[in-house]
């Protein structure tokens, strides 16, 4: 029997598969399709201090092997999340990760201290949303701002802190190192890539917000490269995300350096992608005679001259 359990710092996950923020709501809809306890964990929709309406439609543009989204962090706000959504997530039988996003360091410290005494297994810091006009992506693209934020949040909570990094930077390793130095327990990469879809007949972008975040298989090569590069730069664990659709994809990320992974767009195409991909991973490991998934982590060996 293959051992699918993995560690992300001090947090044990029964398997490496987590649902990515913004692709799973808070689990209620998905709970109609399968037992959420089958997953390694669920990352909540990004929560902000106040409720957010999000951007105007259209919020989606299909691309080759992917999609652009410009949802804009539509969410009920931290109060409603704690009151209405967290209790459901906490009883779903899988790890609950609260994803929080703000426009200032105070936003993050306020939300983290509120969550500190609540049943969340980790706090994922959204430092990378490309669809909000101020704040999180800007923080995520400045290493000293990012470090300062994480240091401040570290002071107000003992919960595992996962820094979710934006790929829309010159050096993601610089950001990952800053996150590690500041006390993050893990880094999550990558968030979506900033992209544009053009309607040439109307001479307008397809998305009402103009640009959006690219996700899906199209970004997997970029995500894999970044996971591998960051793996060589830091010692804290990496949660890999970006275009995973199959068990093979999961193993590619693990070999590149991920201790755990998230799926997002895959669920939008196929609701039962989560359990199906977990099944595929177990089958692949079984066929390959690999007893424990974690022994593959970071085993990628680069070619040299």
């Amino acid at each position, binding site marked *: 029997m293959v*051992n699918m359990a993995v560690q992300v710092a001090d947090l044990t996950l029964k398997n490496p598969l987590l649902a990515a923020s913004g692709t799973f709501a808070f689990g209620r809809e998905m709970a109609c399709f399968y037992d959420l306890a*089958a997953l390694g964990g669920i990352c909540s929709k990004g929560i902000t201090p106040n409720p957010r309406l999000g*951007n105007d439609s259209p919020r989606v543009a299909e691309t080759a092997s992917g999609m652009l989204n410009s*949802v804009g962090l539509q969410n009920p706000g931290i109060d409603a999340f704690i009151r209405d959504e967290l209790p459901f997530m906490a009883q779903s039988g899988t790890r609950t990760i609260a994803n929080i996003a703000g426009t200032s360091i105070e936003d993050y410290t306020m939300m983290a201290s509120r969550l500190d005494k609540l049943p969340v297994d980790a706090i994922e810091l959204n430092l990378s949303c490309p669809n909000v006009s101020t704040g999180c992506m800007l923080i995520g693209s400045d290493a000293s701002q990012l470090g300062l934020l994480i240091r401040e949040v570290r002071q107000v909570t003992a919960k595992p802190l996962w820094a979710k990094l934006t790929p829309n930077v010159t050096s993601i390793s610089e950001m990952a190192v800053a996150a590690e130095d500041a006390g993050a327990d893990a880094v999550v990469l990558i968030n979506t890539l900033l992209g544009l879809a053009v309607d040439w007949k109307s001479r307008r972008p397809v998305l009402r917000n103009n640009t959006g975040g690219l996700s899906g298989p199209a970004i997997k090569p970029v995500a894999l490269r970044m996971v591998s590069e960051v793996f060589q730069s830091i010692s804290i664990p990496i949660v890999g995300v970006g275009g995973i659709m199959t068990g093979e994809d999961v193993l590619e990320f693990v070999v590149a350096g991920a201790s755990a992974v998230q799926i997002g767009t895959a669920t939008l*195409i196929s609701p039962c992608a989560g359990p199906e991909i977990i099944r595929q991973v177990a089958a692949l490991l*079984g066929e390959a005679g690999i007893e424990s998934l974690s022994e593959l982590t970071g085993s990628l060996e680069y070619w040299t001259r």
Partner: protein
Amino acid sequence: MPDDNSINDVILHDPVCLAPVVENKQLGSQTFQLTVAASALADAAQPGQFVNVTVNQFLRRPIGIMAVDRDQGLVRLGVRIQGKGSLWLSQRRPGDQLSLLGPLGHGFTLDGYEQIITVGGGTGVFPLYFVQQICREKGIDSLAVCGYRSQSESILTEEYEAAGCQVLFASDEGDMDVKGHAALALAQLLRQLPPQPRRAILTCGPKPMMQAVAQLAASEKIDCQVSLEERMACGIGVCLVCACKTKSLAAQKQGQLIHARCCVDGPVFQAGEVIW
């Protein structure tokens, strides 16, 4: 730890089914109807609902359900060719398998009404045809207004004429019963009808047409439901890309602006909820 069989233990209900195409019939130059064999879907589907269909592009395509045959386990989808995905769908032949996710969406409410008037414009006549089918099944008196640009662009006219309801056709060109758009024909129809307090108007079609219908319904104090359309991704309410602006009708949140999810909160909304 999962082995090949244990995934079945965790799946409660897989909303995706593989359904073979039974018939692909062209209706107009840009519209066609696909009949697929999917008995669970036929049993579960309600008028106003849709299925998210895998095509040859990345995302699924939301397609309205226009009729079901529960005895034969068949579902009929009405499709307009708009791009590469729907073009691919128009080329499917009997025997081809389609991956269907559904039935999805909050559909039309028929219960509690003694008379239903459907008002469809263009391809809006597809889901309203299903409404007429259910009216027959439930013994609800119904009428249909169908509006098109011209008679040559009209679709489902014979089907509606055989649907067991009074039908009024309208065309902008004036080559059908009424000259003008569907809301105009509705106004004419309402003037002729005896009063009926438990009446609802169900409309689907281009947004300006639905807005005109909603305004008419409001002025006549008739309940009205509209079917909105937005670009979608998941269709199951988790990604939030299909946001449509609505105002809450809930008592505590009267008039509050919401970005509702067209795929689960809609596509059918009370006319009073819609922000046009």
